[in-house]
Structure formats: C-alpha cells, structure tokens
C-alpha cells in the first residue's frame, strides 16, 4: 500500500496497464511530454516511449475516431479528453461508432477503448470546466460509463475499464483529484494522504465494473450517488444525524441494481444525489429504477438533489453546487414523510 492522490492512482493504473499489455497506448491533448494538464500521465512517455504515450492535436473527434480505428486493428487505446465539457465534438464517434461497432458488425469488429474525461464542478470552473455530462453517455446503448470517487477505486476501476472489451467512458471528478471534498468550500483542503481510501495497492488489481459499493452503511434512508457527491452525502449524514446508507455507484451504466434495490428495500427511503442538471439527468433513471423495483417498500417519495437546470455559473458556484446543506435538507424531508 502506498499513499496516493487520485491523480497518482490513475497514473499508476495506466503505468500498470502499459507494462502488462503491449497493445495499450495512451494519447490526448498535452498527454505526452508534458504529462497532462492535471499530471495524470506524468513520466509515462519517458518510461514507455513516444509510440505508446503521445501528444495529440486539439481534436476530440479525431482523438476518439482514431482510437476506434486502433481498436479495430487490435490495440487497446486509452485516450484523454482534457475536460468532459469538451467531449461534444467526439459525440458522433462515441455514439454512432464506438458504441455500435460490435453490434452492427455482429462482432466482426469492436472498440475496446477507454476515454478518460475530467468532470464535475466545485473548482470555480465556470461553464466549460465543470460539467457532468454522464447522462449523455448512460443513454447510449453499447458504452459503459464509470466514475470513481477515491484513489483506490480510481486505480482499480481504470484498470478494469482498460481491460474491458467494451468502450468505456471514464469520468474523473477533478475536484477529488487531490483530496476528498464534502462541499464545505470554506474549510481547509484535505489531502488524500489523510484518508484511508488514499491507501492504494502498488501493482495490479481491479475493482469490477457493475459493482456498487456501500460507502457508509446506515438504516434510515438510502443515498444513491457517485463522484464528489458521495462525500457531500457523507457530510450531510453526519450533520443531520440521519443514519443514511450511502451507495457509491462507481459504474453508472450498466449498474449494480441488486445493491441499490437491497438497500432501498431495507431502508424504505431513497435520495438520489448528483452534480449534473436535474431534467433528464441520470437521477431520473435511478428514480425510475427504484420506483419499479422497490415500490412496495417505499415509505416516502424518492427525492433528487442535483445541480439546477442552468448552465454551470462561475460567481454563483456554491449556490449551484448541491452542498451538504441542500442534501441534508432532502434527508430531513424524506424522513418526515
């Protein structure tokens, strides 16, 4: 075990996979010599050479499209889109090509690619450095969408994603890159070195996809969340004194339905928390699933705490970001029913 930040854990995952599998290649904007604007690929080009880890033109469609071609050849590309806010030019390649290739060719070709994208807000990133576009991927049949919340899961999930033969959208909450964040922006930063989940195994291991984790066991209500909101929900539980069972989905879609259903059937109450905007967000699908599978166990309406249906603002960051006060208020409402 070594203390690692999420950045170091992600880099370690890529290092492990570059070492284990000659077909793994890593590229993206500023990913090569410079080591990434977030340092996630630092040192990898020096260690594995420019034909394995390299810089790419500023062209998200080109990065993803070329990766699909490499996947069709038999490589296992791990490509980076600098911010999730900038994946849109690659959406055609993701939806029309990567997601459909195995199906439309009846398995003749496939796209075993991983697309890493730093996502999420809470960093004064404004409109185009804060978005959480996961619902635009979970709606697409044929891709997997994954989001870790801590260094240990980040490494294990990234290795599992790279090894997976389906295209994986790997969303990295950049607010969690250096330390856990519970939404209390006025308090001092906490480092991963002070958190047990910052202890990361050195070598190869995986965290299986489609496996949710009970992040905090509880009896009063079930919180379904992922990414930064896992820590926000934990803070809300402590501050309200409500014994919330917090589930970190980890794999958004396909997901681990059994863990959710077992928890909600136990608690009878459910709050869904995400940073992304509300309407047609992934929370709507989670709400529908809980309603379908747990209707007779529910003792209160399912609540959603999400970002507002507005573009992500700059100055109004903390009025937008669903912090522990908003999440805690939802806990109380659900418990009053």
């Amino acid at each position, binding site marked *: 075990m070594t203390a690692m930040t999420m950045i170091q854990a992600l880099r370690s995952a890529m290092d492990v996979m570059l070492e284990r599998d000659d077909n793994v*290649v890593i590229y993206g904007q500023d990913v090569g010599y410079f080591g990434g604007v977030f340092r996630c690929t630092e040192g990898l080009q020096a260690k594995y050479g420019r*034909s*394995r880890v390299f810089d790419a*033109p500023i*062209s998200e*469609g*080109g990065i993803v*499209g*070329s*990766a*699909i*071609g*490499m*996947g*069709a*050849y*038999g*490589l296992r*590309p791990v490509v980076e889109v600098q911010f999730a806010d900038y994946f849109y*030019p690659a959406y*055609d*390649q993701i939806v*029309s*090509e990567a997601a*459909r*290739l*195995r*199906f*439309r*060719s*009846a*398995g*003749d*070709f*496939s796209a075993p690619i991983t697309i890493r994208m730093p996502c999420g807000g809470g960093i004064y990133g404004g409109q185009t450095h804060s978005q959480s576009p996961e619902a635009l991927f979970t709606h697409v*049949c*044929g891709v*997997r969408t994954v989001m870790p919340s801590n260094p240990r899961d980040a490494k294990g999930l990234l290795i599992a994603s790279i090894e*997976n*033969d*389906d295209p994986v959208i790997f969303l990295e909450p950049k607010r969690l890159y250096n330390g856990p964040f519970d939404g209390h922006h006025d308090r001092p930063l906490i480092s991963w070195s002070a958190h047990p989940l910052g202890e990361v195994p050195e070598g190869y291991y995986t965290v299986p996809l*489609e496996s949710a984790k009970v992040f905090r066991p509880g009896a009063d209500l079930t919180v379904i969340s992922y990414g930064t909101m896992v820590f926000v929900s934990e803070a809300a539980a402590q501050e309200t004194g409500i014994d919330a069972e917090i589930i970190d989905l980890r794999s958004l879609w*396909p997901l681990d*339905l059994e863990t959710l259903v077992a928890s909600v059937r136990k608690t009878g109450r459910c709050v869904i928390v995400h940073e992304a905007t509300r309407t047609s967000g992934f929370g709507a699908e989670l709400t529908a699933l809980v309603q379908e599978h747990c209707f007779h166990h529910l003792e209160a309406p399912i609540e959603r705490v999400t970002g507002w249906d507005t573009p992500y603002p700059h100055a109004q960051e903390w009025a937008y970001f669903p912090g522990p006060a908003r999440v805690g208020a939802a806990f109380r409402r659900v418990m009053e029913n």
Partner: protein
Amino acid sequence: MSQGAPLRLHVPEPTGRPGRETDFSYLHISRAGEVRRPPLEASPADTADLAYTLVRVLDDEGRAVGPWVPEADAALLRRGLVAMMKTRAFDARMLIAQRQKKISFYMQCLGEEAIATGHALALQQGDMCFPTYRQQGLLLARDDVSMVGMICELMSNERDPLKGRQLPVCYSMKRAGFFSVSGNLATQFIQAVGWGMASAIKGDTRIASGWIGDGATAESDFHTALTFAHVYRAPVILNVVNNQWAISTFQAIAGGEATTFAARGVGCGIASLRVDGNDFLAVLAASRWAAARARGNLGPTLIEWVTYRAGAHSTSDDPSRYRPADDWAHFPLGDPIPRLAQHLIGIGAWSQQEHEETQAKLEAEVNAALKEAERYGSLADGHLAGAATMFEDVYKDMPAHLKRQREQMQAGVVS
C-alpha cells in the same frame, strides 16, 4: 463613410438542371499521358501541381500512354475488367431485386466500378479498407468473397452475417479487409487513419485505405483525418471519390467550386493526386503509388478520383428531379468498362465475343447467387435471425438489464 454595392450571398449552382445540359468545362481535364509521375519519395509540397491536373493513362483510342502506365500483364487487366463487369451486373440485378421488393433498399456504384476494383487489386492481403456504402467493388473484386453472403446481408435473412442488424449495403468483412460500413458519413475516414497509426505503432507492414465521397468531405471527420494522417505520417491512402453529386447536391456546394478536393491534401501537407476515376489503368497505377508510399514509411497520400455517379443516389432517389437525364452520356471521362475493354481489345487481350460471353456468365452467376440467397429467406417471408439475437453484441457480455429486456420481449412474444 462610403457605401459599396450591397453584399450578396453566393450559392453555387450546377450548370445543368433537368432539361438543361451540364457544362463539364469546370472539371480541369488533362490529356492522357500528360501529367508527370513523381518519385515515390516526393514531398507533399512537390505534388501541388498534381492536385490541379488529372492523371490519365488511357487515351481516346484506348492506348496506354505516359509515365503512369502501370506494370500490369493482360491477365491482371482482364481480371480487373471482369471485376468491374461483375460489380455492374451485381448492382443491376440487386436494383431489380429491390424493385421486386426482395430487398428493402439498394445503392449502385454505376460508373464508379474502376475505382474500388482497381484499388483492391493494388492492395495486399491484410490491408484494411474503411469504405463508404459505394465501394462494393472492393468486395466483388476478390475471389474469396461469397456473393451469396453479400446478398444474404442485403436480404437480412437467416444467413445474413450481420444478423439483420444493418441496412442493406452496410457490409462488414474483416477477413476481406473491409471495415463495417456505417450510415454516419465520414466517420470511417479518421478511423482508417487510426488503424494505420496502430499498424505503425506495432511495426507491422499492413496499410489502411480510407474512403469518402465528395459531399462528405464537408464533414469534420474529413479534416481530422487529414490532420492526424499528416501529423503522425500514418500509412494510409485517403480516397476521395468525387462523383460530382451528393444526393441532389452538386459538388460545388461541398466546396468544389474553382478548386479540387486533392488540393485539400496538399494544404494539409499530404502528397496528393487527382486521377481519372474511370481509367482503370490510372486507378491501378495511382493506388500502387500511394500504397508503396504508405508501406515505405513515406506517409499518407490523398487521391481525388474524378468520376460521375451515373445511377441514382439510392433506390429512394430520383435524379431526374435535379439533373439532366442524359448527363452521364456527356461526362467527358466516359464509362470505365468500355474504356478498359477497348484497351484490351487493342492489345489483342480481349474480344467483343469474350465480352458478351463474360457478361452472360456474370449475369448467370449473380442470378444463381440471388436464387441461393433467397433460399435462406428474406425480410418479406420472416426467415430472419431470431428477435432474441438483437440483444447480443451490444456489449461483449450481456449485462443484466439486457437479459431482463430480452425476457420481457420473449414473454410478450409468447403471450
């Protein structure tokens, strides 16, 4: 402040419309044999003149002239002629099959047969083409591709290798170096570059060949493909088939007015050629030149194939509504099949009688293949891959939600 004349929006128009003949002088056609053949290691900038001229080998009398005459024995050229004739016979029969409602949809490559078949004969086993929906000649030029299998795809029947998931014409045949055809235009152009990059990363010797039409060059993936191919010196041939039309849209609306598509390649630092797409010998020679450059680590080549879409865009299209009915008869580069046949007859390697016999034999072959494919069912008679198969191959392993949905569908089917 002085006021000039009011600004006016320029919207290009074809010279020809229904009832009005096309003026083909916009094409910039060189004489056969006139355009130079640069050394393989020519720098992209040194091909600038070739992007505005036209590489041609066969003259009006069917003689092969000039520096681009390929080294090709009569047997290979005869093979090329038969491949073109086979492609045309296949298209003609499938067009009728669509009208007979045996298949739901079809797209011919009438008039463009030389490009895909000639290119196929210039590639090697293991190279990978990333075609559009109008390169069926890449498959039909190969002896190891079953025509019956292709027709089963067109019929979406129980022997359809793609299990009825794709529209007709969207073939996929990895072992024949034919990448899965997508309905989304241009997407495969950058994928071809990625495949070529992968081959270079692995120190392989195989090359990629990407395909796009004139209209689809306006898509952003055309630009990304050229940029990536240039940046990484990818071993790829970038083929632009300029058949003058994108459905009803003349190539000027795609950006072809007063310029060429080959010129885009030079602008991106890619060696580029503009070639008579109806001249089988020129197709063979230019394809070999580009393949040799790619295989020799000399970088990508862009080739604009100048041709004419002689048929309708698809079986859902009626070109008489937007262009002259007899346009193809006036197209200055003619028809690739009689042009090669004339050459072969001229060198004593073909005869009118052989032509007619071959035509009859190919028509019989296509008819027999259609008949056999019909035995395996069609959309109309419901002999298809089972509905449960639609849940397969979405992911490598079927996730729980798809297993549930499959059960729900099956419960609905039986109740």
